[in-house]
């Protein structure tokens, strides 16, 4: 097999499952359903304790980090503050916010930790996120024209997106996107292309833009006005504190950008066209989630800091399963993939990040040019990683 991103022929089903009969795919679906039912039935107070302890740790880090930055004139306080606030923001966005908004903890019936009430520490409002992420991205994962996470409207990340001259800016655009990732996500959540094409009403757009501006004002106000102002009044270290909150947001943005790009853009991950989801069965939907996602290898700290999105495959199969259980289902999912001859893409973070950047670089060239370069051997097709 060659690079998945080099495959341009539209197929009616995930190509990774071309060798499976409809009955086999249905059976795979039943096996995955059974795994999910078993885990969901076993949720208990230990799981509840887990998420509450992560939330408590996050709040202690957040408060301590911000208080340290009030004394940002002291280098040690500044460094400690930036470190703690960065970790707090990453935990809040990934292991807590993203997963709570998915409804992973709705089973506890605790209104303080619930998809209907959670608002998270980024400029994108949770409501819009639920639409573009929980609904569109998770239902139509990697389907061009339906899941706008494929390149977030601005990047060319698969050959299925036709080349246009703006793809030349793929790499610089992604370099700008990474440090401002939360802003990119928020603007992308407004679905501006849909509004331009008339698929989204003016009122809906207006409502979303207002919600975004309101939330962004509060986020910016907290990190770039209230915190520095208080630091200035207390210790005269307003500027240092401003630099500290900016640094924490930068760290968070770079980290989340890297993790998110590892989820669907490394080598060996398939993208799909709309024809492939016509009349899709539940089993086929599962196959598309497996073929369209990639995991990151690592230890418990890596999994925590990625919000367990390092188990991207498991997360896409079971988006509302509490994230602390992905580690437990991963070996079973991997075994099923082996049994059915499906890819299970996984690799260490640096390799996965490297692959996404390399793909984005290659795809900035027109396909014909790249093919010619490829024949000369300067760009080699690599086998997909199935481990």
């Amino acid at each position, binding site marked *: 097999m060659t690079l998945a991103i080099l495959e341009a022929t539209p197929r009616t089903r995930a190509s990774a499952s071309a060798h499976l009969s409809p009955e086999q795919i249905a059976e795979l679906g039943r096996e995955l359903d059974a795994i999910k*039912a078993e885990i969901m039935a076993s949720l208990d107070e230990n799981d509840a304790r887990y998420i509450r302890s992560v939330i408590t740790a996050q709040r202690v880090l957040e*408060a301590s980090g911000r208080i340290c930055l009030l004394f940002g004139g002291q280098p040690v306080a500044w460094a400690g503050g930036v470190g703690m606030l960065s970790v707090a923001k990453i935990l809040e966005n990934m292991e807590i916010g993203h997963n709570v908004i998915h409804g992973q903890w709705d089973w*506890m*019936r605790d209104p303080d930790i619930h998809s209907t009430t959670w608002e998270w520490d980024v400029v994108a409002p949770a409501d819009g996120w639920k639409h573009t992420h929980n609904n569109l991205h998770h239902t139509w994962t990697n389907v061009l024209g339906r899941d706008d996470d494929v390149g977030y409207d601005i990047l060319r990340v698969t050959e299925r997106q036709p080349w246009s001259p703006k793809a030349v800016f793929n790499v610089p655009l992604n370099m700008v996107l990474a440090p401002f990732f939360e802003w990119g996500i928020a603007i992308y959540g407004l679905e501006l292309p849909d509004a331009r094409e008339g698929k989204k009403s003016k009122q809906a757009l207006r409502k979303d833009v207002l919600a975004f501006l309101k939330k962004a004002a509060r986020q910016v*106000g907290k990190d770039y006005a209230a915190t520095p102002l208080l630091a200035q009044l207390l210790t005269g270290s307003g500027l240092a504190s401003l630099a500290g909150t900016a640094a924490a947001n930068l760290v968070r943005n770079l980290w989340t950008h890297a993790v998110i790009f590892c989820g669907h853009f490394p080598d060996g991950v398939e993208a799909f066209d709309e024809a492939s989801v016509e009349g899709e069965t539940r089993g086929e939907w599962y196959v598309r989630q497996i073929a369209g996602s990639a995991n990151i290898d690592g230890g418990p700290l890596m999994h925590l800091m990625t919000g367990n999105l390092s188990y991207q495959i498991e997360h896409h199969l079971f988006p509302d399963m509490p994230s602390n259980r992905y580690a437990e289902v991963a070996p079973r999912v991997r075994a099923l993939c082996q049994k059915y001859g499906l890819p299970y893409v996984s690799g260490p973070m640096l390799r996965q990040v490297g692959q996404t950047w390399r793909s984005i670089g290659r795809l900035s060239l027109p396909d014909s040019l790249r093919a010619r370069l490829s024949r000369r051997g300067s760009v080699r097709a690599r086998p997909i990683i199935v481990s």
Partner: protein
Amino acid sequence: MPKANTLTRLASALTYPLRLDDFLAVIDPRHSSRQLRAVVTKVTPAAPGVATLTLRPGRGWLPHMAGQWMRVGVDVGGVRQWRPFTISSPEGEAPSITVGAAGDVSTKLVNDTRPGDVVFIDQPEGDFLLPAPLTTPLLLVAGGTGATPMYALISTLLARLPDADVVLLQASRTPQDAIFAAEFAALASRHEGLKVIHWHSRESGRLKLAASIDTLVPDWRDRAAYVCGPTSLIADAEAFWSDAGLPLTVERFTIPRIVDPDAVGGTVTFARAGQTLDAPGASSLLEVGERAGIELPSGCRMGICRTCLKTLKDGQVRDLVTGSLTGEPGEHIRTCVSAAAGDVTLDA
């Protein structure tokens, strides 16, 4: 829900999207911006398998009136479960509930709750109240745990009108099962106007008002009457006072919900839209509503995105993917993968 005060609003410039309460909760778990909580301050055994829990509610609690009840929530197996309990303490005092270990929730409250634990609470509710303005004489008929609101009513009444003329007719299985018997006796020793009459069904048979009341309380016709207790006692009292053409104030304890594990299909009532529709067991409630032209939110239509969440007010639903049943009032259900199992009411 507690209203945000000025400090909270000011602090939110630094805490947004969280609130000050969310940080204070790390230190004092009674803080929550969304849900009232209370600390258990005392656990007193009241009878075999029965305990009285005294609570100290967090900010935002509206003090109860005598005879009211409150919903109390505890986490059982990590899942929040709510049950209504009568408040047995007099008006003006910290709320306390008297609980008999029966189901999951009450057993946890009686056996596993210690002073310092936090429980979740709702505002007090109910109209089983003393006459306003306060008039006497009164007759209170209590059966079993029906004595709990009576203790709140009597102790509140006597604190305001020490000479009040009130008769309590308390039915219980045996003298040991008579909840608050010692407390009532203590009150009666201090207040001549309070008369407590015990009826023990193990030795005298079930209390039949028509047969016994003239002997037990000869002047019953002159008294404003209250009844609280098991369904049979309430039915007997309602029939009796209605035959006499006299008013009766009744408190019913919520009857445990009967869950039918085999129910398939039924009706769905969309409470806001004001429509009740046939809901076959194989159709999602979302489809049923949409077909009738009711506007409902929806997204993935396969149970993963939670755009379609609606609050279940009554009834039980079956998950179309797993086949499992749920039916906790107040629970959020995904209408796109939930079908009616019996009659269902949605807050939609």
